[in-house]
């Protein structure tokens, strides 16, 4: 079973994503960017779902560090965002994200297909 690290500070979003993913993937959850970043090398996930608005280190900074790290730079990372403002897609892709999902999640197939795409694209 492939492993996904979910980084999300909102507890109801964590429950929702966990419920959606737990039968398909092993899911490791983190509430903050710092704790996720400190654990990523040990977790060795196949993909990261990364909230943008986190209380300490935001998702853009975590993504930047992943892309700058030799052992993690190929890791697929999907942004989770409630911003949904114009230009966000380009901003997130420029920051090194492979894709992004807008919250609230209105259609779970959007998430599952994005994960499938990213795992396939990176050949994980």
């Amino acid at each position: 079973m492939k492993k996904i690290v979910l980084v999300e500070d909102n507890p109801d979003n964590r429950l929702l994503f966990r419920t959606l993913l737990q039968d398909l993937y092993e899911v490791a959850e983190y509430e903050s960017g710092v704790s996720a970043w400190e654990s990523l090398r040990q977790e060795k996930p196949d993909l990261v779902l990364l909230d943008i608005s986190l209380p300490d280190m935001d998702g853009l900074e975590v993504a930047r560090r992943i892309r700058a790290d030799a052992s993690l730079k190929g890791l697929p990372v999907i942004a989770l965002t409630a911003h949904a403002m114009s230009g966000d897609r380009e901003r997130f892709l420029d920051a090194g994200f492979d894709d992004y999902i807008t919250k609230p999640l209105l259609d779970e197939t959007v998430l599952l297909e994005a994960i499938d795409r990213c795992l396939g694209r990176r050949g994980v």
Partner: protein
Amino acid sequence: MSDSNILDVAALGRLEKIGGRKLIRDMIVIVLDYVPKKLEAARAGEQAGDLDAIQNAVHPIRSSAANVGARAVEELATRIERLALEKQAGPIPALLRELEAAFAQARPQLERERDIS
């Protein structure tokens, strides 16, 4: 707003499709605990005149409210977040009171949904 319009049944239906009544219950339990803490943080930010703190507090309220279909709460939190981001402090206190009232109005509906077996 009438009682039947306070919660968006489509949002609850989405949750039920994903995880049955249990997910609805568990989500509402979390939201009823989490949103008041964020409202308190928003009020603290207001008292401190800290727009970043207000923005950080209302941002997750948007998401939580949307997850359980508390549409008025979601809309007010969205407006407040946008004003905080644009550094327009003037309308925020009145909107925060509206947000608190909207959540207070949604709470009994959420509790009813939580308690359905």
